[in-house]
């Protein structure tokens, strides 16, 4: 019996993936939780940040800070492209256009004609930024064994650096959003969430505020995309609709209109996934479940789908959310 998944689940709590998904979900909380924008294309923002960053570094050969900026610019442009035709219309249109746009981004990224630029279905695995990134690492080589031991976990020098950077960015973004939502700007966007017409009657430009929220959340997701590919290279699956669905599930786990909900939600989400994978693997290897290994890998997605439905139906405010802050019209 292989119980190693338990320690894996524990270390996943602090893994860079968890941080990247938490960050992207903070962006989604700005969109949906605070402003009431139904964005079902958050994966596209992550993908665009990641691809622009990687292409800027690999193809154009820009220095690291410019690559980061390039990724952010990509996310901003994409948000404007999505927002201009849809933000004046009813929520349904934004939801349809965003999910469609996300699929389009993925199709363009994997199209064979663009393989020299985007790596096609194989993605981009070798990066020039890898070296530049490693060179920034201020952490000294560990004294013995090549690993830093922190409690039950051991990290290599590069892993530790990635981890610290990822979580630092998450904390900065969380504090930024937390502060913004307590500012006059935050009160306006929350007003838009509750009653758009009332805010319009106060003389506010609702469209501009929605656009600002879309851009802000999109940029946060773009940065999350960059963090996500930083340790391991770019897999085009990042732009798939399942990424978006994961983010929505995380959002509802933690609470839609909270800043720290997405962080805890992401931790719970990833740890649960690994534990279920481990348990399914255990049962399969012990011949208690009559399924193949591939089928075992699909169970997690079925569970995420069902989990999302159950959460939304029975606990829409999430684990930490406040019911009064849960925006659902109708």
């Amino acid at each position, binding site marked *: 019996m292989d119980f190693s998944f338990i320690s894996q689940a524990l270390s996943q709590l602090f893994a860079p993936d968890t941080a990247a998904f938490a960050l992207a979900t903070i962006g989604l909380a700005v969109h949906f939780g605070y402003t009431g924008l139904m964005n079902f294309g958050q994966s596209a923002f992550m993908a665009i940040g990641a691809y622009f960053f990687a292409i800027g570094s690999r193809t154009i050969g820009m220095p690291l800070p410019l690559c980061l900026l390039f990724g952010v610019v990509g996310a901003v442009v994409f948000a404007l492209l999505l927002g201009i035709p849809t933000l004046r219309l009813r929520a349904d249109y934004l939801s*349809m256009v965003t999910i469609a746009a996300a699929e389009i981004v993925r199709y363009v990224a994997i*199209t064979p004609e663009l393989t020299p630029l985007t790596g096609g279905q194989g993605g981009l695995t070798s990066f020039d930024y890898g070296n530049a990134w490693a060179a920034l690492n201020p952490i000294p080589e560990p004294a013995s064994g090549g690993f830093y031991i922190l409690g039950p976990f051991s990290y290599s020098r590069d892993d530790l650096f990635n981890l610290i950077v990822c979580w630092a960015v998450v904390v900065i973004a969380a504090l930024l959003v937390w502060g913004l939502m307590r500012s006059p700007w935050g009160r306006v966007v929350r007003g838009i969430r509750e009653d758009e017409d009332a805010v319009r009657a106060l003389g506010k430009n609702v469209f501009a505020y929605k656009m600002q929220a879309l851009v802000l959340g999109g940029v946060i997701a773009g940065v999350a995309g960059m963090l996500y590919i930083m340790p391991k290279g770019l897999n085009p699956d990042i732009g798939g609709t399942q990424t978006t*669905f994961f983010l*929505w599930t995380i959002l509802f786990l933690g609470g839609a209109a909270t800043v720290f909900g997405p962080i805890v939600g992401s931790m719970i989400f990833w740890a649960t996934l690994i534990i279920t994978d481990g348990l399914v693997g255990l049962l399969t290897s012990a011949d208690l479940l009559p399924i193949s290994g591939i089928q075992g890998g699909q169970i997690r997605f*079925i569970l995420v789908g069902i989990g999302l439905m159950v959460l939304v139906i029975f606990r829409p405010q999430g684990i930490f959310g406040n019911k009064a802050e849960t925006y*659902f*019209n109708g």
Partner: protein
Amino acid sequence: MRTARQGIICSTYRRRLWHLSLALLAFLALCGTFQARSAPGANAAGVQLIVTVTGADSKPAAKVAITVADAAGQLIKGTTDADGKATIALTESGRYGVYFDVATLPSGVGPAANPTVRATTGNISPQFTAITLTAGGVRTEVTPAPLAAPSATGTASSTGSAAAGGEAGGGSASSADSTSFLDQLSSKISTGLTFGLLLGLASIGLSLIYSTTGLNNFAHGELVTFGAFMAYMIAGQWNLNGWIAISGALVLGGCFGYLQDFLLWRPLRKRRLGMMQIMIVSIGLSLALRYVFAFIWGPDRLSIPANNDPVVSFGSVNLRYWDVVGSIIAIVLLVLVALFFSFTRTGKATRAVADNKALAAATGINVERITRIVWVGGGALAGVAGALIGYYQTLQWNAGALILLLLFASVTLGGLGTTWGALVGAIIIGLAMDVSTMWVPTSLKYVVAMLIMIIVLLVRPQGLLGRKQRIG
């Protein structure tokens, strides 16, 4: 006073649009019948070809170097990945030959023929071909060369399902340069119309469910894939007749729609869940269903067994049985739906509920019953559309996401919440996607659908047949 006047104007306008759309439907249906006959076996545009190489142990063979000679005389190199798949961008659809670099093959096995010559069917992209390596296979090194004329390699184009397209492809290869712009255009129009009709079948349900319940159903694509898998199960796994498969997809699709409504959506309506909440529930359902399909039928692309010999052929054009039958079924069903909405009490009641639920309920229409009928009918139409799309191309567990995108583009173009807008939009989207491949790469035709959707939202957000006050 003012509102009453507006109402009258509006209703005459609506009636005119209604007649207009019926006339348009009849016209398009006629076009569909004639145009479907000239659907091409091959054409000058490129398609994406995915070659899957499987070893003798039926595991994927990775890192096999292949060279594909396509109908345009190009030699394109590729290497299989960990899944045994290599993606090749053919510059021209039609006959192609896959050459193996023997040095990269797993030891002791080889393909049945080197090169393996097959042909693409039509301009559907991507195309798939599977090559199995066997212990007694060819292991002599062959230098890749442009394909010779079909007569020179008479034995080559005999590999099963692709034979029909093979002959057509060979014909097109030799006459590619003389293919005129109009010939190309008409063949694109015919394939576009065929696919547009199938999309239209599927989108009517999406549009009706939206207008009667307010739910923007993100799991509608999965209703379509469900139909495709039902047809696969009946025709592919139980080896029954294709007609049984299509009718089975219709009936089971309807049952699936009914079950969804009964088990999920009706209780949620009773709970008075907000529309946005229900929308997110449909997203969760879409994810769960998609992976249930993958769980049951596996992650690979499947094709429904069908006789791919041409039944209608003239000149260099060959039409498969199911190309013809699919278009006819689609047109017949669309006409039946049109008659249902125009002449039956239930059909009229459905339009009334779609138009104004409260008013319809006040006139004594049982809104719950109509909603149930819409779910059953929408599910059945989506199921048939899925089965026909399965015959038209191939089916895969995650195809629903892509179909959903096209359905959204269709209903947005036609007008969200209108009965006929979806059909008109679907046909335009189908046409635009195929015709655009004359200028843009085939793999980007979905981008065209998306761009149309965005432009429509910018210029006429209520869609072609929609009313302005609906967009809120």
